[in-house]
């Protein structure tokens, strides 16, 4: 999946740098879909209200500075470096000191919400043991980075009901994992 995303975005980006507005709309839309969970997960529940502002600021910066994308380099790395800069800048301006795992390869804008290979198989096996709706909730909140309200809405539940259901799901998962001793 990863090389496809790179190839597709790079093609769109090159067209956008040449002045193709439709290609740029697609790039920004895809970035928005990635940036929202990326920032939400990192800002945490206390700062959830700032996520949309930060996404918009980042899109604006990406727009103004789109000439800095070098066609010889991967687009995904460029976009991730932009997002990470904006995140650190956001924390700095709010004087929040946090440890950012700067070089954690798995922790990028592009791969962190789509586990692959063995991890994905393990995750599917584990979550597959849950009732359908609980599985959707866990995936929504813990993997995609949605808020409880949003994940609940997707399943037609209130935030409160989603909270209770997620709690049960996590308890069930703990029970399944714990006895194995790992």
């Amino acid at each position, binding site marked *: 999946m990863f090389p496809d995303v790179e190839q597709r975005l790079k093609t769109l980006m090159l067209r956008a740098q040449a*002045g193709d507005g*439709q290609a*740029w709309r697609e790039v920004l*839309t895809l970035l*928005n879909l990635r940036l929202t969970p990326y920032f939400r997960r990192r800002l945490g529940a206390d700062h959830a209200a700032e996520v949309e502002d930060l996404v918009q600021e980042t899109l604006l910066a990406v727009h103004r500075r789109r*000439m800095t994308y070098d066609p010889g380099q991967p687009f995904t790395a460029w976009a991730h470096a932009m997002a990470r800069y904006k995140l650190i800048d956001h924390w700095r301006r709010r004087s929040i000191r946090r440890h950012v795992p700067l070089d954690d390869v798995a922790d990028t804008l592009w791969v962190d919400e789509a586990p692959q290979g063995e991890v994905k198989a393990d995750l599917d096996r584990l979550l597959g043991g849950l009732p359908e709706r609980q599985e959707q909730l866990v995936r929504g909140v813990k993997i995609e980075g949605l808020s409880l309200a949003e994940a609940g809405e997707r399943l037609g539940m209130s935030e409160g009901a989603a909270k209770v259901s997620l709690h049960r799901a996590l308890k069930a998962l703990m029970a399944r994992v714990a006895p194995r001793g790992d």
Partner: protein
Amino acid sequence: METDKLIDRLAGDLRPASARQVPWRIAAVAALGGLVALALVVWWLGMRPDLMTAVHGKMFWMKAAYAAVLGLGGFLALERLARPGGVGRAGLWVAAAALLLLVGLGSLQLMAAPSEVRSALWMGQSWRRCPLYILALAAPILVATLLTVRGFAPTRLALAGGAAGLFAGGVAATAYGLHCPETALAFVATWYSLGVLLTAALGAALGPLVLRWR
């Protein structure tokens, strides 16, 4: 919803933005900044009196080439560091290799010279002034370079500032060769390098303050 509107607005009136803008705008700073440094040398410091004979000698061109290669290293590094995630290793290696080469050649020259003239060769007549003049000539170029790079998207701000200083210092030192009458390699390896490195240090200090973008 708001974000969708923003995307519509940004995509609606899109103009081409070629990646070549990055090297070209930095090169334009080198051209304009070089002219300003040249003007300062002519009207402020004055050309060296023996310029007409000096241009026939090797040493005049050695100095110019060394300073220009330092500036080129700064340019190459900066062209990378102006982009998000860029590191600019190759450019920094170019500058480091030039410095090592000249330090080596300068040492050989000093060792070959009779011991009583060594310090005269090394210090010349202008060792106190040389690094400071280079720094002064480089200052306006450094400011212009930092302002230009701030319009791009550097993410390693101190390193980008340092590369901007190396670049500005190299351009300024190239112009300074028209004023400077010194002829020893060891002089150039020490005092020219010091002037350029001072500019790089100033740039590295200013980088995190000046290069921050939103």
